[in-house]
């Protein structure tokens, strides 16, 4: 029973993870990645890490919905209505992926790991609770402060105007003469409308 569930969940996790990069639609890609995460969450539950599996499930559902929203707002071809090629250096990438899989798989097969299975569920959840609020309190609190700092940094990075001026101030060429106008053709900012979005840089 457990091995059948393991086979199903792991095959689904790998297959959906692979389909993320083979679909034309970016919304579909984010929901396929969500499916991969949910299958890994189910695998965590199978591995008796019940708290981790459930936390992964809730966290990833919200995160991937946010990701799908970003896809629709920003990216080309969000719904996959016209097929297009979104990849570069495909051979090198496939080679790197195969090397990573074979290397890590070789470690999994050839490595000598200790044999110490975990205890059944109530004991592990109780132990995790007292660990998080006891010995690992510092780690947990650090994670919380890190997340707060991330929120502040994300808002700072994405706001159009900071306390020292516009966020693209560094990309604007200075004027050639004092008090002169800057020359818009020297700007790195491509606000010429229309053509800037899709063109592939080829200098």
């Amino acid at each position, binding site marked *: 029973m*457990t*091995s059948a569930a*393991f086979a199903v969940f792991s095959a689904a*996790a*790998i297959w959906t*993870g692979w389909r993320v*990069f083979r679909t034309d639609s*970016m919304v579909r890609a*984010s929901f396929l990645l969500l499916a*991969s995460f949910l299958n*890994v969450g189910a*695998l*965590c539950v199978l*591995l*008796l*890490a019940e708290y*981790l599996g459930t936390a992964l499930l809730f*966290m990833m559902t919200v*995160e991937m919905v*946010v*990701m799908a929203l*970003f896809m629709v707002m*920003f*990216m080309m071809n969000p719904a996959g209505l016209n097929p297009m090629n*979104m990849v*570069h250096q*495909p051979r*090198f*990438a*496939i080679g*790197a*992926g195969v090397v*990573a*899989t074979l*290397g890590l*798989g070789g*470690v*999994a097969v050839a490595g000598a*790991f200790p044999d*110490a*299975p975990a*205890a059944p569920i109530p004991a*592990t959840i109780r132990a995790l609770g007292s660990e*998080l609020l006891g010995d*690992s309190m510092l*780690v*947990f609190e650090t*994670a919380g402060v890190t997340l707060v700092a*991330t929120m502040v940094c994300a*808002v*700072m*990075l*994405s706001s*159009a105007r900071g306390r020292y001026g516009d966020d693209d101030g560094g990309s604007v060429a200075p004027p050639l003469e004092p008090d002169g106008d800057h020359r818009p053709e020297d700007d*790195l900012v*491509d*606000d010429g409308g229309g053509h*800037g*979005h899709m063109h592939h*840089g080829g200098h």
Partner: protein
Amino acid sequence: MTLVTVLLVAAALIGIGVWGALAQQTFVMIMMGIELMVNGAILAGAGVWAYAAGGVPEGQVLVIVAMAVMAVEMAIGFALVVAVYRTRQADMTEGISTLKG
């Protein structure tokens, strides 16, 4: 379900993530590749915790830290995408090759 099979599944997920992050052109798809790599790392951590670490709670704390890393990567990644898009109108890696040697 043994430690070896769990780690093999994790290795496959990490390999797919490496391939996706290197092959994709748009920033968000590259972030999805990185997320898939962290996904495999979480699975490997849970597997080692369950089979080789005797279920010590510190192992689960490590996995929780990996999940926090994933959330931080998403938030900062999206903020960077917004900042780059606003100044350069670029959503692909080829669009910001100004500093390329």
